[in-house]
């Protein structure tokens, strides 16, 4: 696998604007704002409270990880942001809009837990799918798809079918597909959860470079502490039954440019420790 230089003129401009917030005063610095957000799934036997009074603010350019044991509502929170699920109560605003308006304006790209590639489409045509739906002209569609595939290191695989690719490659295609929309907000639900540790490290490095180069706001669901600390500027620790936020940890002590070596640093260990303590606290409710 190669590491293409993920810098590209258009997005690099966007990132400069993102970091220079005074210049882009038209855009608020808050991308996602949730207040007292609750969601109850009405299941057959008894209702499940997946989210309970969640307050969360995500600033532009942040990389926010949601971490917690399975069933604590991470996916649900992400789906509420994406308007794939409606909250039972509370407020949520995305870029000053309702989630539905944000979805209809295609403000976010969503990377699902499984690659969810369409098996009858080649890799390239899978990446072109959102662009087809947006009604973008064929030539530009193809150019953008090629560009994003190159960015995730999959040049040369355009004509392959998804099943001819490894799991890690498939997940990279699905990231390229989300990036092809050129969204400001990238929502990722355990994208590397099913991959082996080596591939995962590799893709994490890739992802953090991509994030730095594009200045996108990322919301990333994981249940790996190391992954969360390595990638994030802020970590949201959640606990189950009912799903709620226990702690929000800033990772300012780590440099914005992440290299694999920072995992050996004392700052990294300190943050990881705090995350672990937070998760422990959540579990004491169970016993």
């Amino acid at each position, binding site marked *: 696998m190669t590491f293409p230089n993920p810098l590209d003129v258009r997005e690099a401009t966007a990132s400069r604007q993102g970091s220079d917030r005074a210049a882009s005063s038209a855009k608020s610095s808050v991308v996602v704002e949730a207040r007292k957000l609750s969601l109850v799934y009405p299941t057959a036997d008894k209702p499940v409270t997946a989210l309970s009074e969640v307050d969360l603010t995500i600033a532009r350019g942040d990389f926010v990880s949601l971490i917690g044991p399975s069933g604590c509502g991470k996916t649900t929170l992400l*789906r509420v942001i*994406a*308007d*794939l699920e409606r909250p039972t109560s509370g407020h949520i605003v995305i870029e000053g809009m309702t989630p539905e308006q944000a*979805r*209809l*304006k*295609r403000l*976010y*790209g*969503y990377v*699902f*837990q*499984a690659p*969810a590639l*369409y*098996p*009858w489409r080649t890799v390239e045509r899978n990446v072109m*799918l*959102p662009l*087809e*739906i*947006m009604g973008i002209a064929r030539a530009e569609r193809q150019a953008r798809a090629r560009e994003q595939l190159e960015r995730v290191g999959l040049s040369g695989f355009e004509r392959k*079918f998804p*099943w001819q690719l490894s799991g890690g490659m498939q997940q990279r295609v699905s990231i390229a597909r989300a990036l092809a*929309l050129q969204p400001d907000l990238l929502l990722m639900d355990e994208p590397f959860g099913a991959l082996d540790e080596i591939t995962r490290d590799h893709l994490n490095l890739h992802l953090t470079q991509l994030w730095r180069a594009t200045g996108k706001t990322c919301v990333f669901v994981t249940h790996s502490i190391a992954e969360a600390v390595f990638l994030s500027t802020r970590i949201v620790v959640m606990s189950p039954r009912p799903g709620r936020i226990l702690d929000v940890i800033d990772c300012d002590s780590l440099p914005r440019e992440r290299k694999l070596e920072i995992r050996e640093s004392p700052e990294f260990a300190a943050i990881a420790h705090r995350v672990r303590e937070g998760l422990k606290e959540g579990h004491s409710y169970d016993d």
Partner: protein
Amino acid sequence: MSDLVTNPYRTSLRSAADWGLVAIALPALAALALPLGVQNGAVLGWFGGSMAPLFLIGVVLAVVAGASAPKRVWGAWAELAGVALAWLLPLHLLNEGLDLSAGWGLWLFLVAATLLLWRVMGVLAGMPGWTRSVVVPGLFGLGLLVGWEVLVRGFQVPAILLPPPSRIAAALAANAPVLWDDFRQTVLTSVLRGYVMGCGAGFMVAILADRVPFLARGLLPLGNLASAIPVVGIAPIMVMWFGFDWQSKAAVIVVMTFFPMLINTLAGLGNSERIQLDLMRSYAAGYGRTLVKLRLPNALPFLFNGLKINSTLALIGAIVAEFFGTPVVGMGFRISTEVARMNLDIVWATIAVAALTGSGFYGALAVLERVTTAWHPSMRQR
């Protein structure tokens, strides 16, 4: 290692341990002691002056060549030549005017030849590509035809009960113009139109029922009801409603094919995973886009299932419906009238046309399915 276990041709003549061949050779040897048949009232043995020894030598040579071939596929082809030669013997003897019905030596010999064919097919079926997908089924069909021919003629089965394939082929050739007119009336007119209307309507109503849930709820039980209606029940009614010509046949076909298509399409439309649908929703894709770009491609295997089932149903429906009234042409009409006149050769020829049409129709759909759903897990390996 696996070659040692699975390769029945690994042995050369030098290491005579091919027990499969030995098991086949035993009945073949025993057969040599029994008669071949009766000629002019006299029982004829293997070496009684016929050409039989020449065939025998040919078969033995083929088997020897097969057993000593360096590759098992080559061995299989050599043995196949032996099998062909063995089955040509009774045809030759019949042409010489022998009565084979008491020729137990010949029949036992043919049993051995069939066992040899079994062995050959086992090897060929393990070959990838054309050998497995075309040659093996082709040989199988050919074997059945030859067996039918030899048994019917050897035991002198009356043609009124079951004519040999050669006689059916002759009837086909002799009655080609009539059969072509029947084919045009039944298949090209009634079946095609009824099929397109029935499948089209089933598909479109399914799309509608998918949007309007109460339609699906109401229609699905009706589907069970409709599939229980016998053709012989609705055919006379449709003839009364729509007259003798193709319209009544098409109506019967529509009744028979509508629900299978509806049910398969509905099942196919429900075949998309939630995550795939969520993806479309995240792109703000509307109903139409989701249908065309996701749900219909996902439904393709189900659609083809419906189309394939219906191809057979349509042909049966048209032929049976023609029993209840038709202009004086059509495959169903031909069968019903020629049976009454004891003209069974034409009946069998018509049946052959129907069988070929049915398999051709089905086969064309299967090829189309393979081309359009090559991505589907069930198609990938093949």
